[in-house]
């Protein structure tokens, strides 16, 4: 135990005139779990890519086994024993688990010998309890199982000594997270070095031996297990600014929710604006991903939607918005049956949406931000058959919400904006219209804490103004914090709605995983 495998000395990475990483130094020993903490945008991802050879190191040096790495790339990294388990799963959904493993490893030869490979994979599966059916198509597997395949891929390489995990728990349910953290300790005890990159503080606190904090590209502090550390201390170092920490702390610091107070009027559930009865929604393959389910939402309420990714969140939002048909059942808004309404009709009723993937769903290549505002969100004036662009530009530039959410200059091409800015643009556009029903699908994803705060504030403001908000998120604590009612998508059903007093991490986690037996 305790060999130094990797040593980083003043690592630096620059993109144009933006410094993503600066002066980062640390050591990695076998048999220890290292956490690399920091909020979104702090530079964790960039650092990791340098460690794995994806990005060239602009300054400083990297040593593996005491040898300086000069011509470093992922192949060399793998050779030297660095195993990277990616967050976005470098898997081909159309292939089986076994085929994916065959593809990824340098050590499986040129010809696909199924039986041999299957045996090896099963052996590793057993050893580390990474159960997954090797002959199953990946598109059929849930995200937890896909992660297992990613880990197996890395373990197939016998050289592997360091396992790097990039935001591994962002798509897991609370119970799966527990299992995962246990797995990390098993790896550690088997002599691996683990590098855990995450912004989830309560997980770090449970397993890490060493915690490095990244802020604005620099390594600002290191905590050691022997000296002890608390969640609050970690969050403070991560964010720096005390004010912002206060409210957002709840998400990061409070590990376990056991209910909260209900602040809504008692009869609110009797006055829904939208009701779904016995609805069935089919996915792209024709399978009923939500079957015979009910839910409702009232004005002035935030309805949180919890659930493991892939349980119908996208299909549900598409149905509510009119993009996906309702297979059966009824959707009522303000007493009117809107089950078959087109998107145009729903927009006219005051339904707005923030999609889970604004690039895929909102971005038109070649269009400026202004043109995107013309597509939706603002009503332009017309000069005969032509659009009055000047008038629209004034409207947009004078709009409070636009200024607040820091949407950049309107004549820039939208496709050149950063991901965060595109998200902001889509969000601003959707809330401007003072919708009666607003569906926010993963609105905080990938944003830094300051912007997440702003997003939360906007949603609360909408709620105060009487909008019914449906809020989908993968972060259970965020849902607990923001929601007034909660439903859970699981086992092709909708469970709930749960009142704030029932917001219990353990219980809801169970429902997410297994549903509720009637």
């Amino acid at each position: 135990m305790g060999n130094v495998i990797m040593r980083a000395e003043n690592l630096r990475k620059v993109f144009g005139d933006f410094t993503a990483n600066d002066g980062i130094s640390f050591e990695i020993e076998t048999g220890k779990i290292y956490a690399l903490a920091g909020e979104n945008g702090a530079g964790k991802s960039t650092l990791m890519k340098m460690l794995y050879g994806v990005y060239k190191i602009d300054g400083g040096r990297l040593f593996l086994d005491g040898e300086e790495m000069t011509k470093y790339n992922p192949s060399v990294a793998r050779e030297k024993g660095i195993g990277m388990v990616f967050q976005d799963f470098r898997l081909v959904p159309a292939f089986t688990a076994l085929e994916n493993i065959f593809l990824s490893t340098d050590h499986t030869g040129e010809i696909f010998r199924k039986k041999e490979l299957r045996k090896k994979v099963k052996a590793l599966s057993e050893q580390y309890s990474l159960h997954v059916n090797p002959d199953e198509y990946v598109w059929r597997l849930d995200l937890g199982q896909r992660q297992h395949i990613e880990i197996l891929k890395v373990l197939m390489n016998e050289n592997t000594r360091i396992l790097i995990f990039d935001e591994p728990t962002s798509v897991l349910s609370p119970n799966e997270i527990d299992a995962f953290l246990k797995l990390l300790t098993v790896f550690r005890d088997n002599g691996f070095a683990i590098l855990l990159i995450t912004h989830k503080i309560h997980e770090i606190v449970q397993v890490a031996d060493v915690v490095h904090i990244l802020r604005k590209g620099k390594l600002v502090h290191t905590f050691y297990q022997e000296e002890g550390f608390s969640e609050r201390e970690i969050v403070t170092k991560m964010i720096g600014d005390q004010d912002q920490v206060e409210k957002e702390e709840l998400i990061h610091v409070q590990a376990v929710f056991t209910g909260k107070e209900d602040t809504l009027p008692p009869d609110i559930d009797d006055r829904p604006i939208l009701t779904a009865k016995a609805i069935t929604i089919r996915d792209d393959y024709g399978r009923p991903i939500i079957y015979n389910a009910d839910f409702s939402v009232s004005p002035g309420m935030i309805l949180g939607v919890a659930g493991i990714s892939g349980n119908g969140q996208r299909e549900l939002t598409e149905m509510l918005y009119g993009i996906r048909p309702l297979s059966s059942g009824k959707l009522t808004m303000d007493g009117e049956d809107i089950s078959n309404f087109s998107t145009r009709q729903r927009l006219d009723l005051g339904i707005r949406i923030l999609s889970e993937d604004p690039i895929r769903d909102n971005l038109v290549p070649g269009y400026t931000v202004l043109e995107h505002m013309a597509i939706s969100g603002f009503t332009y004036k017309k000069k005969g058959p032509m659009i009055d662009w000047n008038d629209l530009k004034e409207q947009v530039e004078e709009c409070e919400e636009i200024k607040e959410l820091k949407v950049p200059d309107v004549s820039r091409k939208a496709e050149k904006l950063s991901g965060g800015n595109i998200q902001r643009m889509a969000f601003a556009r959707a809330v401007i219209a003072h919708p009666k029903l607003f569906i926010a699908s993963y609105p905080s994803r990938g944003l830094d804490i300051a912007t997440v705060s702003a997003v939360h504030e906007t949603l609360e403001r909408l709620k105060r103004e009487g909008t019914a908000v449906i809020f989908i998120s993968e972060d259970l604590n965020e849902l607990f914090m923001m929601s007034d009612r909660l439903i859970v998508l699981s086992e092709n059903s909708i469970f709930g709605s749960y009142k704030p007093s029932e917001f219990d991490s353990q219980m809801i986690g169970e429902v997410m995983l297994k549903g509720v037996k009637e």
Partner: protein
Amino acid sequence: MMQKMTVKAGADRPEIRKVLMRVLAGIFVPIGLFSIFLLTQRQNPLTVYRALVMCFAGSKYNVGEIAVEMTPVLLAGMAALIPAKVGLSNCGGEGQLIAGCLTANIVGVYLCSGLPGVVGIPIMLAAAAAAGLLWAAIPLFCKMKLNMNETLTTLLSNYIMYKLVAYMVFGPIKDTAGNNYPMSARIAEQLRLPAFAGTRANVMIFAALFVVVITAFVFAKTELGFKLRTIGGNERAAEFAGFSVKKARCWAFLIAGAIAGLGGGIVMSSVEFQMREATAHDLGYLGFLATGIAGGSPIVSIFTSFLLSALSVCGTSLEITTGLRSSASTILMSVILLTIFGLGRGRREK
């Protein structure tokens, strides 16, 4: 899952220098390559090029011929461009144009032979447009209801139209007075578009240009055009904005078919007057290709259509002046097309 977002895009405004380089390359590379070809055919490149230029600039008659060729090419070009703007790929302009040509002949010979031109010609042309529309409706239906790839269905339907024409001219519409050759009867004199003195050109070139200019205006300046371009830019974004994507696409495709059909009707009424197996072949493809190198701009397609039509027409006269087979000009045309594709300003993959 939201993908990480480093979206690449071309430069906002390409430097003037780069554009100039491209234009020059687009002119000189084909000239160079074609010159090599000419040398292998024991032709003097300079003589050939001079003959070509003389042909363009030379006689009023030739200008008229170019206008005659250009009319259907322009229209077929719009038949490719309009669906492309809404994200559909219509390669069936060839078949839709021929459908129009055939229908104009049938309607002209069997229905309008007794009618005065003022009445008969519009009827013929309208029928031609309708035929093009109907022929386009088939691949459209396949796309909308059966989820079939429209590029392939339109291409295959071109071949089916070829065979249909062959069947017709060998059978049902074969001219009984025509020595048993596989060709249809000729349409009556008064049903032929009056030509400008000394040439075969007629007023339809202006109609075609008008269609192109209207198309350009609609897409670039109007609200309708904005919505249509949005559909073509990102179908999902258009759906999310509440645009009726299906409806727009259907209209665009059918209008395209009608325009191509109209082009075919004009061909029948202005130069062909009768239907043979190979009548109006390749005009549809030329239109498609002319638009393909015009970067989505209807106005630019006027110039590319002119270029291709001029070369096509002058190729024939080349044979007379230099002895070079007329099919050589198609080689020049295709080399120009490929060069321009090679210089393309599309997005590059990493």
